[in-house]
């Protein structure tokens, strides 16, 4: 009798393990691009804060299966996720934007992180630094050269993807 109880119990446990469903399923590859542009230009030169809201505008109608999902001109909110300030030796600044709030589209169905970098001056600063090290202390002067500021211009096209069949 005990044997049967054990078998039933183990079956129940194994079934419950298989029954566990994940809150995501990335199987489907169908995707719809959503093209946006920023309403007001932002730059790491200005006083930006992480978590700050920014406004974007849809630049092209978005269709899926014959229906209009988002109309051109519609406003969308997003957040400045992280700001990386420019650094010594030509390291560029960077802005990371995420948390796009598209009407009627849940965040779980979006692939949306957007990165914008400033000018990377490392490629010429480092060779310069190494060539100047022949003269004592002069190589360190390149530390003063900073990388470019990151700027998201109104003409920049920000493309994020909507995966309609994801959970």
């Amino acid at each position, binding site marked *: 009798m005990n044997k049967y109880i054990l078998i039933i119990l183990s079956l129940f446990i194994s079934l419950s393990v298989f029954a566990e469903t*994940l809150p*995501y399923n*990335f199987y489907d590859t169908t995707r719809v691009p959503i093209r946006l542009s920023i309403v007001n230009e932002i730059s790491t030169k200005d*006083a930006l*804060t*992480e*978590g700050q809201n920014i406004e974007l505008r849809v630049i092209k109608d978005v269709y899926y299966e014959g229906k209009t999902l988002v109309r051109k001109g519609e406003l969308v909110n997003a957040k400045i*996720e*992280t700001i*990386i*300030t420019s*650094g*010594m*030796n030509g*390291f560029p600044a960077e802005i990371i934007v*995420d948390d796009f709030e598209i009407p009627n589209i849940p965040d779980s169905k979006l*692939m949306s992180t957007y*990165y914008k*970098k400033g000018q*990377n001056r*490392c*490629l010429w600063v480092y060779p310069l630094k190494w060539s100047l090290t022949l003269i004592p202390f002069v190589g360190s002067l390149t530390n003063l050269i900073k990388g470019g500021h990151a700027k998201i211009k109104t003409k920049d096209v920000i493309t994020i993807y909507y995966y309609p069949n994801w959970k």
Partner: protein
Amino acid sequence: MKKFIYILLFILFINCQSYANIADYNAIQTHVDSVGVRLLNFNKIPKRIVFTYSDETKADLKQKYKALKNRQIIVYGKQYQFIQTDDELAGMLAREIATVMKSYSGMWGGSVDAVQVALSSKKFETVADKRAVDYMVKAGYNPLGLIVYINKTCPQKRQDVVARHNLTSKRLARIYEYITYKYPEYLNDNEYINNQYYQNFLLNSIENRRRLENKLKTGTVGEIDYE
């Protein structure tokens, strides 16, 4: 005959021990994988990153090299011994994921960015801390776990002017500030308030937190000069 039995028993004992070790490693590796992959999936990171547990003593440079070149996150035994909750493990792994992600972006297949991360340690240390908070929140972990983990594991040096790393107190203060601005709900409804390690952080960060409170009161922008 007796001798033979003793040898047999000895071999059996050694084998049992090595099986036990493998089982232990497997349990730790499974733990690391489950938290790591949860972070990747919930953050929808479409890049390959692997997690490996190693009982070697921690080698800082080797860890960074593996992360940037092989996109392999190594959790060393010395680091894992400090882990007490999933939040803390998630904090540790999320930092490394942030580092690896830098090696995937930019020119020449991310090689230039990888060099920048390696050369500009202090800068990207702060960036990795901040990105780790975001990754943790999206994966359903409490970002205060990162504060607890760093507070327990990272020593406090005398200065960071001539150093490759930031002062730990500065890192903690910046993470706390980041959570205050972006995810205040974790501080308002604080699950860690009865955690003795978190309370220890609150105790040793009084001066820095006062500076942050002052910034919030006055509404100033810009970086706070933490100590």
